């Protein structure tokens, strides 16, 4: 099969899956709503509780799941290609720990933005992610002309540990209710309750996805090693830089919306590779679509399994992802 046909096939299959998830997910939740009433536009919206639950609670939440899932899954693909390490995740290089530190500070000190008093948690998380990315990048570039993937990995792992210590310190001094909420933030939560957080993250994600589209071929070359990629005419250093920054941007934006939801960035790429092979021109878009469908599905479980008690969505992805990851490890050997 030519690459065009494989691409078209994958788009059709995974696109249908993602679309189905996005259409079906808002129909279920912790309460039952009457679909007839949801789309009954004769009653004013402010009095139509079913419509409000659908459009204010469930739809933004589903869209948040789709965006975050797509971003984390494709960022996972890019990081695995860039680091040439199948165990890399969007959080390997410290992005999530930096974001978590930012969110932690914003929650503990009740930061708000400007006079409007918007929540500063997403912005602080994004700033924290940017900080972590800059540090890792500066370190990895300091001693090499290009990006040393070894230094990237080591710096990322160390930064993760360092930021985790800072997070524990902030938590330690926080009020009891606050430290509970910060802990809860770490488990991931897609209940955004309005479209505003999505609109803020969207421009960043558009830039990241545009970069991913360009990155598919360079990642194919990079997977053969930096030297042979260079002999085939790839500007390795520049491609690595773009991969690093675009994947970090996608991760930072995703974490600022939904918290550091784990395992999406590793299970989804591997599952997709099992099904479509390893060509990044197919794996990248297919992972984005499958990631969207997967996270939307996990979030449906999170809000319905123990309703009215909400399960953290990160716990669901980890419960599914952990065993899968182990199976993957065993299977490789």
């Amino acid at each position: 099969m030519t690459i065009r046909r494989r691409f078209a096939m994958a788009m059709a299959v995974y696109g249908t899956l993602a679309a189905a998830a996005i259409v079906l997910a808002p129909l279920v939740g912790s309460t039952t709503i009457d679909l007839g009433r949801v789309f009954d536009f004769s009653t004013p919206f402010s009095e139509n509780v079913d419509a409000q639950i659908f459009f204010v609670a469930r739809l933004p939440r589903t869209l948040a799941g789709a965006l975050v899932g797509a971003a984390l899954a494709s960022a996972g693909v890019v990081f695995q290609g860039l680091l040439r390490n199948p165990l890399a995740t969007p959080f390997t290089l410290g992005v999530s720990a930096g974001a978590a530190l930012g969110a932690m500070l914003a929650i503990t000190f009740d930061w708000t933005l400007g006079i409007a008093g918007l929540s500063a948690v997403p912005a602080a998380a994004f700033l924290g992610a940017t900080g972590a990315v800059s540090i890792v990048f500066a370190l990895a570039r300091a001693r090499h002309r290009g990006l040393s993937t070894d230094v990237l990995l080591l710096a990322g792992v160390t930064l993760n540990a360092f930021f985790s210590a800072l997070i524990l310190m902030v938590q330690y001094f926080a009020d009891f209710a606050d430290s509970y909420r910060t802990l809860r933030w770490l488990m991931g939560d897609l209940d955004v309750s309005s479209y505003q957080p999505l609109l803020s993250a969207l421009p960043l994600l558009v830039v990241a996805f545009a970069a991913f589209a360009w990155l598919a071929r360079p990642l194919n070359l990079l997977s053969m090693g930096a030297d042979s990629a260079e002999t085939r005419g790839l500007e390795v250093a520049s491609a690595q830089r773009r991969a690093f920054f675009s994947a970090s941007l996608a991760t930072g934006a995703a974490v600022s919306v939904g918290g550091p939801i784990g395992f999406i960035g590793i299970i989804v790429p591997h599952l997709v590779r099992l099904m479509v092979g390893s060509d990044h021109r197919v794996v990248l878009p297919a992972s984005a679509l499958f990631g969207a469908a997967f996270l939307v599905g996990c979030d449906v479980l999170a809000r319905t399994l123990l309703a009215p008690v909400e399960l953290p969505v990160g716990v669901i992805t980890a419960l599914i992802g952990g065993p899968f990851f182990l199976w993957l490890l065993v299977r490789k050997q």
Partner: protein
Amino acid sequence: MIPFHGRTRAGSNGTAVIAAVAAAVAVVLVLAGRPSAGASQPSGHPARIISVIPAVTEMLFAIGAGPQVVAVGSFDEYPPEAARLPRVGALLDPDVERILSLRPDLVIVYESQSDLRTQLARVGIGMFIYKHAGLADITTTISALGDRVGRQKEAAATRAAIEAKLNEIQARVQGRPRPRTALVFGRDAGALRGIYASGGVGFLHDMLDAAGGDNIFADVPRQSVQATTELMLARKPDAIVELRSSAVTEAQKTRELSVWKSLPGIPAVRSNRVTIVSDPRTVVPGPRVGDGTELIARALHPEAFPK
């Protein structure tokens, strides 16, 4: 002999043995230094009490045992006399060394502080084991505490005062329509995210009940519920009371109340029955719980109380 033997076999093992022996000697020395501070003295009452739990510290001072208290926890701010005492950590980080050095004969410990409990038991210091529960448990705890520290009469009076206050509130709200209420005790600033409300058990639920409100999460058998957007919309609270333990400025209050405007489907939002109560009395299950309950009752039934 033993340490030497250990060292010849393996260096690190030997160090561990030395450390263990040193620790044992230290424990023996500590024990020897306090021959009279054995298990709780059956005859006398404790004269040196340490409490790291704000609610119990308040209880001790309320029943007149304040002069017997020698140290408190990091978060204890009331009464002012308590805030001036030495601080010895809190629920998660009790400073055992400082606690021991103050030579207490009674330490109030939270049920979950198992390390601290083991250590205190080892050196034979008396303990009063406490755990947050419902409203009725507050008065029960005060009585038990009174028996333990020799302040039965004062404890009975404190208990009677709390019950009188609660009865007074009950009388005022009796017969008035009970609004279906969400009692929110945590939320991200400036957003309707990370909302936590009282579930159907615990003192917050009981306080709301006594204040003349029906908890919208009464059916959830937990102390806290993550109140998602969907739950808030679906359960349609007639009133929302947000509790804050620290002071909130008027400007912050206005701003935080306006955040709810994005969910006009909630009856409480439409009819402007969202209130922020910033007062530590509402979140500490101690002797001031009657006052805290009154603050919630005033938020729900302002017309039932004189200005």
